[in-house]
């Protein structure tokens, strides 16, 4: 996989993206400063940064939710609005529609596309079966555990068969066991569907075990601080990767690079909280 990635076409291209916004006190804040990045077709890229560094802002720009102040995003060489490639988005939020049963939640994207009821329910049913959620088709989201809900969100994104999947700390609030299991599932899905995945996280270990490439962002304004190729062989088994000496070495290297930014981030957070409390 890694070897022939070099020949693959560029799927998503960020060109000189900068973004600033006005905060509540009326001050202009620079969130992102001049980020350029090419992501190849079928590549699994993790974007790592400390909390509050602007990585979610970057992701929102990448998928078109947010218009950048400067620069452009190209998907298959076209502006996002005109791009034909389908994108999937899995955020850290629970975005299931609570009034829809599981099967109708999974079929939501297909319903929006205008697929016939029979077809969309069949696709949804198959996905539910392959993801081990059989028997839960007619449950409402509140009747599922957090891990199961995440799984429904993942297969809902897959139902539309997206070329690019954006994930924003998708497993943040889950416990470590559920998290590991779902990470493994993401790897399996990715190896089968060959989608391009852009994965945002602050968890260095998670980034290493999942991705081909790690983009490390500096603290505000976000710039690309470093880039790492992850040479762990595939297919990877998450629990085992973590004891690989290469994993430990890379984790330390990344941690050493980002340490300073984390410190600044924490000081800033402390300062902001103190300001709020006065």
């Amino acid at each position, binding site marked *: 996989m890694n070897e022939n990635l070099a020949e693959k076409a560029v799927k998503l291209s960020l060109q000189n993206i900068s973004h600033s916004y006005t905060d509540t006190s009326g001050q202009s804040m620079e969130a992102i400063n001049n980020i350029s990045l090419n992501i190849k077709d079928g590549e699994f890229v993790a974007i790592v940064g400390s909390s509050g560094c602007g990585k979610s802002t970057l992701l929102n720009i990448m*998928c*078109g*939710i947010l218009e950048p102040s400067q620069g452009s995003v190209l998907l298959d060489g076209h502006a996002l609005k005109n791009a034909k490639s*389908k*994108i*999937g*988005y899995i*955020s850290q*939020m629970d*975005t299931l*529609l*609570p*009034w*829809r*049963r599981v099967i109708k939640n999974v079929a*939501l*994207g297909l*319903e*929006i*596309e205008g697929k016939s009821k029979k077809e969309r329910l069949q696709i949804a049913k198959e996905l539910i079966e392959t993801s081990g959620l059989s028997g839960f088709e007619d449950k*409402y*989201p*509140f009747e599922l555990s957090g891990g199961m809900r995440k799984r429904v969100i993942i297969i809902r994104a897959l139902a*539309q068969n997206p070329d690019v999947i954006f994930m924003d700390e998708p497993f943040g609030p889950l416990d470590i066991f559920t998290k590991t299991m779902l990470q493994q599932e993401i790897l399996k899905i990715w190896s089968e569907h060959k989608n391009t995945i852009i994965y945002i996280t602050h968890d260095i270990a998670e980034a290493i075990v999942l991705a081909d490439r790690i983009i490390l962002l500096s603290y505000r304004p976000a710039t690309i601080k470093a880039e790492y190729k992850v040479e762990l062989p595939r297919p990877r088994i998450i629990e085992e990767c973590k004891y690989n000496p290469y994993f430990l070495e890379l984790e330390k290297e990344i941690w050493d690079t980002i340490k300073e930014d984390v410190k600044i981030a924490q000081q800033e957070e402390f300062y902001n909280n103190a300001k709020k409390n006065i």
Partner: protein
Amino acid sequence: MLKKIFKSKLLPQFYLILFLVIFFGIWQFFVNIGSINPFLFSSPIDIFKDMFNLFATGEIWPHIFVTLYASFWGVVIGTVSGIIVAFIFGNIKILADIFDPLFVGLYGLPKLALGPLFIVWFGISITAKIFMSTIMVFFLVFFNAYAGFRNVDVNLINMMKLMGANRLQIITKLTLPSCIPWITASLRAGVGAAVLGTIVGEYLGAVQGLGWMVMTAGGVYNITRVLSCIFILMILMSLLDFSVKKAEAIILKWRPAVD
């Protein structure tokens, strides 16, 4: 038998009945020993006799029907118009900005004070009562539905947009369903408000209805009749509230039960 009751879920209902029996017992006792003047306070036995007669002769039914009829249309028209106006305001921000202070002002107004106007405009007719009832319901539903439309989760909107949803799809598949809990919440209060509106309408001018019955009986110092009507109204309200609660539970079965 008693043990069964104490263990069952009906315990609160059991205590309620016990309370009512004791309450009416004491009332009757003081009437019997002459401490309470039955001309002013009537007596439970007289009230029950009167209620029994009202139902036995069937005299009460047209009045209940008229009051419920006006209240029903008040709920329907008030709810539908409340949702429509809230929806328009939710989508056209400039309209909301212009009319928000006006609506808040109208909401704060004691709408019952408008009653005489409606009687003048619509006459002593069912229309005046429906109008009174509608206006009571409208504001309750409007403010709730408006809050609902404005509180649609932006993450869900983004999710739908990225899935390729157009504006209409977002409205039908997201905005409207997510407002349902807000609307049902206002509906329980709305049903009470609707009956209140109708009754007040009937106080002011009517030829039928429970409110009219209370008014006419009061006019001739028939306290027994006034109290029978009030008890009938209380029972009616409990039944209505119970039905709305049941309907709400069915409509919102996708939400975890709050206990």
